């Protein structure tokens, strides 16, 4: 990397926006494309988040009986996912949410216990 070159490049761009309209249009187009791309990627990752909370709950707590057979990275991931699910549950407007919060915490705490017994 040549720091001088980077600097020069930036200067040109700034200059371009300020003074030349045609380049400004091009620049806008580029920015819009960039934003569109960002939005698209964000929405697909939302799509992933949108696994219904109940399915996610069943997936995570489904591991409790086999928890001792999991390794440290798997347990760590389960714990992170439980915490993420808990954040989603907190935001629900559903009378059942308190029992699912209770249950998710129980699963997370078990994973944590097993992780600790494995020295993780």
């Amino acid at each position, binding site marked *: 990397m040549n720091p001088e070159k980077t600097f020069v490049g930036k200067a040109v761009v700034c200059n371009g926006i300020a003074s030349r309209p045609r380049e400004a249009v091009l620049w806008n187009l580029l920015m819009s494309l960039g934003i569109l791309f960002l939005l698209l990627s964000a929405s697909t990752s939302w799509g992933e988040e949108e696994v219904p909370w109940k399915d996610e*709950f*069943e997936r995570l*707590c*489904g*591991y*409790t*009986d*086999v*928890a*001792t*057979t999991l390794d440290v990275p798997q347990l760590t991931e389960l714990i992170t996912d439980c915490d993420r699910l808990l954040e989603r549950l907190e935001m629900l407007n559903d*009378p*059942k949410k*308190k*029992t699912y919060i*209770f*249950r998710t915490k*129980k*699963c997370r*705490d*078990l994973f*944590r*216990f*097993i992780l*600790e*017994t494995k020295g993780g």
Partner: protein
Amino acid sequence: MRIVTKGYILGACLLVFFLVTAAYAATYGAKKRRPKPHEYGAVVINNFSAKNRMRPVVFPHWIHRAKHTCRLCHVDIGFAMRAGGTEITEDDNKAGLYCGACHNGTVAFAPKETSAKGETVENCDRCHSYRKEGIPFKNDFYEFKKGMPQGRFGNGIDWLKAEDEGRVKLVDYLEGVSIRRQKLKNPEDIEISAKETGMPDIIFSHRKHAIWNGCELCHPEIFGVNRGEVKYTMQDIFDGKFCGACHDIVAFPNSDCQGCHTKPVF
């Protein structure tokens, strides 16, 4: 003559053993009035009832544990392991939570039902029953007990034998509430024997306890990470901690020393 002396010595030893045990039990928790067999495991729930001019709720464990595993209620349905700890409300029950997960007219009676004649029957009293005489309960404890293997303590029923002999069949799954868990390929894996040997002369089957209770009920709330040394004593157990979180309340009581200690403890 020889034999007679031996007999005396043995008798004296036994007497001393019983006296010491009784004294020990008396100095520790066993001072409480011993509940009658039908009362053993009954939980009075009164966070909101009296405040709302209802009788407190009496939850009998016996009829429920004769049909369901501990885990179904204390893990899947989410009841706390402490009287009043869940903070159940009638609205929760109506929404299908807690008691309402079963007492909805399908698994068990609902708060209000319609009789064959088309009249509305209110079942409020069967749950809100504290200190009320003459409630027409459907299930009679002493009738039920007649058909069960007898135990010396607690409900006076040997629950383990009842299960082994198939006299009670415990449901561990409730549609819409329980989840399908991944199963161990080798169920013997639950036998985490390493630490069990840390308790000499104590019988504790990890596997059986896990089947009744599920792992989440004990770990980490009742048994946290074991750092090696002996961390709890009999006094802790009498105080309702560790094994005492269930034994003496719902599972067989602490006065049954030999239930846990393979050898006399003195």
